[in-house]
């Protein structure tokens, strides 16, 4: 694996449609500036974290980048032949898309957000429409939150980008919804099947009942007003970590395998 090759791949892809980059940046800047001016005019704030709009904007960027741009060079046969036969390994081609979509795009967007808050302030001051707002600082807790939000969406949409040829974001969210609904029904069915008897036997007026206890399941699980108490909390936390990291590794890994297997 060669870092220069990855850099050259990123450069080749981004510069293969230079106008698009400037159009995207210009459009994002214009839209964000207008929205910031309007929101500051309507409800002045000194704290960006109040804006759920920033996270929403990040979601829009994720859908645009991961739904339309990522792996786009492999989706059309007349272009894909060239990218597939470009002298670079599959790992390098995958990493070029990975680095662009996971790091360059969100960081670039946060810089655009900073410039947008500067421009919004400029307009607010020039036209006297209201009080100024603090500049958005990408190197802050707020910036880190936005990045984490984007990064959580990344694995799923990144896989969708290589798996679906057209309207990948829509199809990914659609598939996820269908899967989650199916999973919810499956879990509900199993819970009903396995625990319906237990619930009937559960004695809510048991002598162990305290003011704080809402429900107990045997001796290992107790739900109280302060939260869930589980005898095997360590195991539960371990499972939670496993699912979290598994989610990232599973979809990133799957996207790599898909790229490896792609055919024209």
């Amino acid at each position, binding site marked *: 694996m060669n870092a220069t090759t990855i850099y*050259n791949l990123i*450069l*080749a892809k981004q*510069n293969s449609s*230079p106008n698009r980059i400037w159009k995207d940046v210009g459009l994002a800047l214009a839209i964000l500036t207008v929205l910031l001016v309007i929101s500051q005019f309507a409800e002045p704030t000194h704290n960006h974290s109040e804006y759920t709009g920033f996270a929403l904007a990040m979601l829009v960027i994720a859908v645009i980048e991961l739904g339309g741009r990522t792996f786009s060079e492999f989706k059309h046969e*007349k272009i894909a032949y060239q990218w*597939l036969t470009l*002298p670079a390994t599959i790992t390098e081609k995958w990493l070029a898309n990975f680095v662009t979509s996971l790091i360059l795009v969100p960081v670039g967007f946060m810089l655009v957000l900073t410039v947008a808050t500067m421009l919004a302030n400029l307009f607010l001051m020039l036209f006297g429409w209201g009080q100024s707002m603090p500049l958005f600082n990408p190197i802050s807790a707020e910036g880190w939150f936005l990045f984490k939000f984007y990064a959580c969406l990344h694995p799923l949409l990144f896989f969708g980008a290589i798996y679906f040829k057209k309207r990948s974001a829509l199809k990914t969210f659609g598939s996820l919804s269908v899967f989650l609904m199916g999973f919810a029904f499956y879990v509900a069915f199993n819970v009903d099947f396995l625990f319906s008897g237990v619930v009937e036997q559960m004695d809510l007026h048991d002598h162990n009942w305290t003011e704080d206890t809402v429900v107990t399941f045997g001796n290992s699980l107790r739900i109280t007003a302060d939260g869930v108490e589980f005898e095997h909390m360590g195991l539960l936390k371990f499972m939670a970590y496993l699912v979290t990291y598994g989610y990232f590794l599973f979809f990133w890994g799957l996207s790599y395998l898909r790229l490896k297997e792609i055919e024209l």
Partner: protein
Amino acid sequence: MITLSDLGFTYSRKSTVFTGLTLNIPAGRSVGVLGANGAGKTTLIKLLAGLVSPTQGEVSVLGFNPRQRQAEFYQNLFIVPEESELPPVTGMAYLKLYSVFYPNFDHKRFSHLTDQFDVDTSKRLTEMSLGQKKKFLVAFAMSTGCQLILMDEPTNGLDIPAKAQFRDMVIQHQSDEQTFLICTHQVRDLDSIIDSVVMMNETHAHWFDLGELPEKISQVSHRSEEDVVLYSEQRMGNQLSIVVGGQPHATDIDLELLFNTFHNNYDGLIQAIAKDAA
């Protein structure tokens, strides 16, 4: 250089492109690939370039398995497709962006070839005509220094002078180690530049060395009774035949006639060549 062993490819159970193709192509040759429409010429190019997986048999190109898609493999293979969509950048920008991937890229040669082809590299590739794009890609391909260049219908879209320029370029700029594999159905565009030919249909593929062929079979316009005729057809009032063995009054073997012989009497043709070789 290229080895196909019992190669087969099917899109589905009902749609077999070809099956059981076996052949060897040595390095340093200009090879024409001739086949009827739907015989799988483009599919063969895709298989050689690792763009699809064979459903039967094996392919080896430059000592690599193309499906592994190794960077070293692609440093020595360039494909000029029949139709391509080039990015909306100038020819020079394209050169700067993509030549870095080829360690043996020859910038002087590229400049020379684009001049010879009369391609304006300051123009955006999307604003070029189909013929100009093709000439640009061919010039780029020939400058990469790749050992194997695959071209799918390279003369499609070229006007008559450009076809002549294309032939001159291939003859002038092909190095000893370089192999050109050119798929086409326009046989006459190729016959002056190729030194060997792969003929293929759904079940057979064979590599013919055009230099050695006249020792094994001949094309005659007046056959004698002793001649073993492999194929014969009427052309412009003449009865042209492909017969077994070298003949004193033979004319140059016409590729179309050879292809028709291959298509209509495959077994006879292969036997004639094998018998003579033995």
